[in-house]
């Protein structure tokens, strides 16, 4: 697994400054949780890391490779870092198995049999072995998100990004998705998770970052941030979230 380092990331959308100089470190095999109010730029930060959004200034390093190097193919970068979205973004016109196989066959150019084996393996790993021929719209939210996780894992990434993976789920489904994510963390995956699930952050995260107004306001271990926050904005946010 790899470490990710972000230095001085800045991004504007028109006149709106979304990221105002972000520095972040995710150690190899560690889980980083990013918490903060809506609109603070957390999603944009994650999307910059796998180059879905091109930052205006700053550098991102995966191990020793600078991802913002213009000579680097973004497709290659995205194959090294997997991403799971809040709205799942599964391919609605393909079955679950084909969803997982698609990128293997076309982005990584793996032949059909091997791709199928990997797909089956990953889908079994997330607990959906019996849903392989179903279409995404026939599955519940939690099942769809687990397919999305399997799809990202099938690419054998060096790190995984999760953008509010459980925010669109009903309470029953949240648990099943968090369980999968917890297992992933135990297996030693480098993860950056934007989430509102404080219970998950407390249990699984190695470090937590409080993000507001386009910058990192506070950083520390889960107990430091949740129980003994220094910054008053962090405290105010925690009071609202944790009851």
């Amino acid at each position, binding site marked *: 697994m790899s470490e990710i380092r972000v230095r001085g990331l800045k991004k*504007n959308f028109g006149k709106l400054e979304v990221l105002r100089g972000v520095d972040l470190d995710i150690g190899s095999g560690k889980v980083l949780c990013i918490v903060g109010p809506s609109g603070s730029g957390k999603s944009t930060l994650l999307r910059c890391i*796998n180059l*879905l959004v*091109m*930052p*205006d200034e700053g550098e991102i390093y995966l191990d020793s490779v600078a991802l*913002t190097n*213009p*000579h680097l193919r*973004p*497709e*290659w*970068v*995205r*194959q090294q870092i*997997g*991403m799971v*979205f809040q*709205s*799942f*973004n*599964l*391919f*609605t*016109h393909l*079955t679950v*198995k084909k969803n997982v196989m*698609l*990128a293997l066959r*076309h*982005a*990584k150019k793996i032949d059909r049999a091997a791709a*199928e084996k990997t797909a*089956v393996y990953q889908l079994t790993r997330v*607990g*959906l*072995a*019996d*849903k*392989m*021929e*179903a*279409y*995404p*719209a*026939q*599955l*519940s*939210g*939690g*099942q769809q998100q687990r397919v*999305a996780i399997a*799809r*990202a894992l099938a*690419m054998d990434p060096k790190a995984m990004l999760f953008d509010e993976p459980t925010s669109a789920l009903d309470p*029953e*489904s949240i*648990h*099943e998705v968090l*369980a999968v994510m917890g297992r992933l963390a135990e297996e030693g995956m480098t993860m950056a998770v934007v989430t509102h699930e404080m219970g998950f952050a407390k249990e699984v995260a190695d470090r937590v970052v409080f993000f507001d107004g386009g910058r990192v306001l506070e950083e520390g271990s889960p107990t430091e941030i949740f129980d003994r926050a220094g910054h008053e904005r962090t405290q105010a946010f925690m009071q609202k979230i944790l009851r």
Partner: protein
Amino acid sequence: MAGNPESGSEGGASSAGSPALPLASGPKQPPPDLSALQPGRVREPRNWASVSSPLYLGIGVACAIGFFFLLGAAGVYSLSFIIRTLPQGVGPCELSLEFTTFTFLLGFVGAVGLGMVRAHPPQRDPTASRKRLRTRLSWLWRWPLYGFASGYVAAVRGTPFLVQLFIVYFAIIFTFPRFAFLGWDAAYWAGFFALLINTTGYQAEAIRGGLQSVDVGQIDGAKAVGMSRLQTFARITLPQTLRLITLPLTNEWISNFKTATILSVIGIFELFDWSRTDIALTDARPIEAFVLLTIFYLVVNVTLSRVMTYVEKTRRIPGLGSPIPEVGTSKSLLEAGIGAGHY
């Protein structure tokens, strides 16, 4: 339609314990139970004349035929004359269909290109300084191309076909007065060309609407797993677009078929010209002429649109497209002016 026993939410308990389907099972799913997928769906009255079931459709057709015979018997028009002259119309009808279909197919080819250009307007890119030179210079050819495509579509959609026809007709007649090719003279080819230009413009807008309606989240998903832009387009955007534009393009064919009647003003002997010249004027039976024309047009247009609506409703991929095809037209398709129920 019984619900698929595997569908619906089952919470987290369904994973490791349940029996696995054989992995090599056939890929065909039975048509899904659509009502389960649309919570809070709007009321849809059971419309006997819409195609919710073949039974209602059969009743509708029977009523129409009965009405036709009834009016004939009542003396509004002469049934025997109509039945006698019906075969005469087949030739002109064929000509109309030829014009319509060939221009439609050829137009589709051009429209795909135009639609793709129109679907991606060039925009200012603030992160340009971080990209390669080749990407940064692309605006040089992208702006004029987009301008041309937009201008073409605006001109074709903003002016009446009659005007377009006369422009093309006079241009060709004065430049190549004695042109003849494959049995058609200059007037016929002028009409063909004008119809071609017209339908290309309209189809381009439908295709653009379809391209822009594809859920942007799926494109994100494809990018996130490392597919290149070409692959994303070919595997994700294109299949979904083709499904989304099936009904609008059918409506465009029907619209083309009706527009082809205007070709009669430059002397092309198609269906409307036949009914007007031969029957209404020469035989002095305008009512019968109109009924004949109605028969041809209703049979072709209504059948086609019903069949396509039926096909679209029953063979859809679950979750793709809007719940009520005639109603929930996506924003982009609406801008294109071609909703699914509109021809």
